[in-house]
């Protein structure tokens, strides 16, 4: 099983690294947000899939990452993407801790509503505090340097589909590996245990609230990294990133791919980005079709696309 997963991951990474030589620049600019969401969803699913806490406000941390990149690059003149990632991630963790301290006391709808409320609180802050946040128009995000190299000879598109793309895919691989280790560590097992039966796990000595607080903070860090990548791809951080519909999109992607599987949300991110992009080009009723897709997935394939793939694989294997 481990070998199969390893082969799958290596094949997926090799495909991602090979894409720029196969796909046109436009499609690579679509893969970039998919990579960003994949990283964010790795964190989101630590909370949702492994801890059993469904957050409706995680766009807040994506926005913290995006605004972190905006403030650091536009206002403070920091160009190093490594520094942007670290500081944005740290800001997201700092923002997550007080939210988590309150939210992880609750479960199910109460947890969801609390996270939603904090998300909208941050959206209001971004929208109303013009002098700090730029209000509705947001803040420009300038092109970063990667390992000290600014790639000045490349225009923005060439930078995005070239060095920045490979950097982000590398980041996805590293953060994916780290998350894999987290969910398969004793810490990860504690989270799963608290998801399955909170009382029983507490009785067995699991410090449920503390571990959930840690999981919440890790998920915020991952979302901020995804947000920073998104913001550089767009070139702007705006309040819509923190809006509840964006949190809804994170949930959509996780459910679409299958939140019960480690790779499900990643598959969901790539599928969602390409599905949305193609539907937007085909019809003005793309929201209807996206909604219908979600209904079909939830009703007929609750384990998501990865679940469907697993079922097909099992059937083929049996024959």
């Amino acid at each position, binding site marked *: 099983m481990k070998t199969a997963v390893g082969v799958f991951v290596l094949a997926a990474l090799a495909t991602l690294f090979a894409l720029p030589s196969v*796909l*046109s620049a436009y499609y690579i600019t679509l893969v970039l947000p998919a990579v960003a969401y994949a990283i964010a969803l790795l964190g989101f699913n630590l909370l949702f899939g492994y801890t059993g806490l469904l957050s409706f406000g995680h766009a807040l941390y994506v926005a913290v990452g995006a605004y972190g990149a905006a403030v650091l690059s536009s206002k403070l003149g920091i160009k190093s993407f490594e520094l942007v990632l670290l500081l944005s991630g740290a800001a997201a963790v700092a923002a997550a801790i007080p939210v988590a301290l309150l939210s992880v006391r609750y479960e199910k709808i109460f947890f969801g509503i609390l996270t939603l409320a904090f998300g909208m609180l941050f959206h209001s802050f971004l929208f109303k505090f013009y002098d700090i946040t730029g209000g*509705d*128009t947001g803040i420009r995000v300038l092109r970063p340097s990667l390992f000290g190299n600014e790639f000045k000879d490349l225009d923005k*598109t060439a930078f995005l589909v070239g060095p920045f793309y490979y950097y982000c895919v590398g980041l996805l691989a590293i953060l994916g590996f780290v998350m894999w280790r987290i969910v398969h560590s004793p810490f990860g097992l504690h989270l799963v245990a608290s998801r399955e039966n909170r009382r029983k796990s507490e009785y067995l000595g699991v410090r449920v609230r503390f571990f959930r607080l840690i999981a919440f903070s890790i998920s915020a860090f991952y979302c901020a990294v995804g947000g920073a990548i*998104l913001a550089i791809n767009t070139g702007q951080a705006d309040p*819509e*990133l923190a809006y509840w519909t964006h949190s809804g999109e994170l949930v959509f992607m996780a459910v679409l791919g299958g939140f019960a599987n480690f790779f499900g949300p990643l598959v969901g991110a790539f599928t969602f980005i390409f599905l949305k992009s193609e539907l*937007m080009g085909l*019809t003005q009723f793309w929201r209807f079709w996206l909604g219908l897709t979600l209904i079909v997935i939830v009703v007929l394939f609750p384990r998501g696309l990865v679940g469907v793939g697993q079922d097909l694989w099992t059937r083929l294997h049996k024959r």
Partner: protein
Amino acid sequence: MNSKRRKLLQALGGTGVVAAASPYLSFPAFAQNTPIKVGIIAPKAGIAGTIGECGLRGTMFAVERINATGGIAGRKVELIVEEETNPKDSIERLRKLVLQDKVDCVQGIVSSGVSLAMGAVAEEMKALLIFWDGTTQDGVKETMANPRYVFRSTDNECEAVMASLLAIKYWKGKFKTIAGINPDYSYGRNNFAAFQALLKKFGVEHKVVADQWPKVGTTDLNSHVAALKAAKPDLIFSSLLFADLPIFMRTAHGAGLMDGGTKFVFPAAGFQHTALKKSFTPEGMIFGHNTLYFDHKDASPLQKDFVKMYVDKYKDYPHWEADRAYFAMQVFKAGVEAAQKAKNAWPGKEDIISAMEGVKVQSLGGPGHMRKDHIAEQTFYQGLTTHKNSYDFPTLGTVDTMYSDQIQKPPGADFWKWIETAQIKL
């Protein structure tokens, strides 16, 4: 949708997987005897959906006329339309049009938030982009001092400046207390601030007794109306312009806000002109139709043709977004043709851009030109409303016309300093 699916199936059936995958692969640009591709990004849903639709109709009218008379410098125009949503997704649409569809020019955009983000991206991508509306200003500060590839519409504040001047012209000495109900984003805030700055400039003593800032798209304005009513202002200034404006007027009418002779100034109400019925709107409001007043008695034959077509085809009356869209297409056409004439060969992007700088065109609403700094100048229409017409909504009883060089800051100027120092005529 069907044609795209057919194309995909034909490709799969006829030439196999490689052909089917061709939209996803890189290929060189098309030859120059093919149609000129123009990408349009416009809202199709939500609070700006009807505005985008009106703009698209203006574009289609322009393209039909252009193609019927031989196209642009002999090449027909082909439109590829994408939807404007939030900045992130709209920029993705821009990239699709430029990198995948390889359009020659992109036009459109209504939202200032989207245009501000997209302007910088288009400049970095070296993509020719002409905004219908929106701005590249952060507040009233220009973020793109010397754009090369981005051309934008007039400053958002033009309509507020004109409406303020009309309020002073018609009502100076007739009001002392003012209130504002403006959308809670930079456009609404700047407009109300500009109104107060102009009152100060013209020595109109006034006191602000209430300022309300509903979020764009708010559908319950009861509390805002109650606050305005309690303040009992002599004049209310409102830059509401989306679907929330008719809601405000209905709520205000129901609450009796219009019973006491309060004066109303609506710089940008033209977007909603047909939804503001006589039954709940008073006469004598200052009403902004921006760059297209559909019922102008002295309109050009071009405008009259357009309005007639619009009424016959869509059973509706157009507003200024149609004019902005028509203007954008005409500026592009004029630029291409001037560059082609100068070069005596098909011009490149840089030639077209240079030719568009300073170009003069006749738009639906009247004459306009594109300044050297890539900012449009157009003709604006506002006035006092009347109910004496054959429609179920108010029109203008008196039509005031201003060319935007009177109400827009000159190149490179600071907006607030310009208001203080400019020789502005009433």
